[in-house]
């Protein structure tokens, strides 16, 4: 089985979010970038398929040279090779189109993406990618097994979960649950050394257009100070008369 894991390069979860002076761009100053947490679960699940079912695992990112350390980290975790589509990520549609080209050229059976990136939270790349490829699609995937050409997946629904069966090629939007958090891989020294020798192929984009544009950004208005209640009675009174929520 050939697996492609889509890796989004995102500000780490503790980042304070700032924008440039005219609020048109995210300010990357002092921001650490990491593998998108949802993708990390997918990458670890892919390593399981590699070790237990002899799958090959490639990782891909659409982005400039600055995303290469993130791809190297994925190689250090155990991916066989990496592909970087050499263009800035503009919106979900453009990224999905560029990824579809890579997926088609490589003839992958299983494509694992995260249900959303924690930066723009579009939640659209995996679904659009599946749509463009005409592949099966499971979103919010929390468990996945593959046997030959068949797959069984579990997805989260509002208030529960649902078990699905389908055939390859399959695209999933994955998340926590695909593997246990305690099983997430951290690159070790040997992995880091080996990653240096693994191929990181830079391919030129096909020039897909974006359909949406993040024109400007805004931070939420600062909130007033918390109102502290001295007693439970006072808290109920505040929630009823002041906030009007009970």
């Amino acid at each position, binding site marked *: 089985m050939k697996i492609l894991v889509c890796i989004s390069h995102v500000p780490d979860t503790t980042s304070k*979010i700032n924008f440039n002076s005219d609020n048109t761009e995210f300010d990357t100053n002092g921001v650490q970038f990491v593998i998108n947490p949802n993708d990390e679960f997918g990458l670890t699940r892919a390593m399981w398929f590699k070790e237990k079912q002899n799958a090959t695992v490639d990782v891909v990112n659409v982005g400039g040279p600055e995303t290469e350390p993130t791809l190297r980290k994925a190689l250090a975790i155990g991916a066989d090779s990496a592909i970087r589509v050499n263009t800035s990520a503009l919106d979900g549609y453009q990224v999905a189109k560029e990824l579809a080209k890579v997926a088609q050229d490589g003839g992958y059976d299983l494509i694992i993406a995260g249900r959303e990136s924690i930066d723009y939270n579009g939640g659209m790349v995996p679904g659009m990618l599946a749509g463009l490829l005409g592949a099966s699609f499971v979103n919010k995937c929390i468990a996945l097994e593959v046997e030959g050409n068949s797959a069984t997946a579990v997805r989260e629904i509002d208030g529960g979960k649902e078990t699905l069966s389908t055939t390859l090629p399959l695209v999933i939007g994955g998340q926590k649950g695909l593997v246990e958090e305690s099983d997430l891989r951290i690159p070790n020294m040997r992995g880091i050394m080996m990653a240096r020798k693994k191929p990181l192929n830079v391919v030129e984009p096909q020039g897909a257009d974006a359909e949406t544009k993040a024109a400007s950004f805004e931070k939420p208005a600062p909130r007033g100070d918390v109102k502290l209640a001295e007693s439970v009675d006072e808290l109920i009174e505040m929630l009823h008369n002041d906030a009007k929520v009970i």
Partner: protein
Amino acid sequence: MSVVVYTEFEEGKFKKTALEVASYAKGIANQMGTSVIAITFNADDTAVLGNYGVDKVLNLKEEQLNTFVASAFAKAIAEAAQAEQAKVVVLSSSANSNYLAPLLAVHLKAGYASNVVALPTSTDPFTVKRTAFTNKAFNHTVISTDTKIIGLSKNAYGLKEHEGAATEEAFSVSLGEDDFGVKVENVDKATDKVTIADAEIVVSAGRGLKGPENWEMVEEMADILGAATACSKPVSDLGWRPHSEHVGQTGKPVAANLYIAIGISGAIQHLAGINASKTKVVINNDPEAPFFKAADYGIVGDAFEIVPELNEKLKAFKASNS
């Protein structure tokens, strides 16, 4: 030209989010001077949609669509939207709508903005405000395609009633085996509980509760308030509560009217998931807990004393105010 809205009909009625997206679609239709057409599947009675601004309902009666299958639903909505020359298609942020929306975008070659929180600030260029960076910021997004798809954040717009009646039309689509490539084998749903996704009130607790055996008082509060229960990440990692209750940047987003956090410190990753909630209340024994800086109301004290007392007094309050 029209605004098409997908209204989810489940377990014999329209979901509350369906009425919210209908209200929102009416808002856009007013801005654009056009009408609202709802699409729904196998609804028994569609009259209620008229009260939320829908002019016409395309009710697709198709047994195969009794169970949700994203690819088939996406194709059916796409055909309806094309037939009605939709300029804008509005969906909710339910798990199912989030699942089908990107597939729909490919069918319609449409730009899609998810997590939208308000009516467009301009319809030309078409600009909407959406949350980004997991609620740590907003992003004004311009959609440049002819047809636009909007995923509306829960509770962001609210319900707006209208005087009006919706006409119903039958609608059929051509679905083939290919559209059902993913088969539902089994659904496991807790039907008697309010879910985080639909809840207006969420009662959430963290590691401060010390162990799973102490959640009874949290569930009791949720019962009294008709709320859903939630938790912080370590609590689900420790297996005290199911993963599906984990709220935050790597868990579920909560956009409730009232979020009550008990024994949760207020780490940035947790706050990111709840920023979209309107009123936040914190119960914590540490006056320095970061959550107090992000909250509207709070009480400093031991959860094991405060929560039982609060439950008793909320019960009494509810009894005398209902």
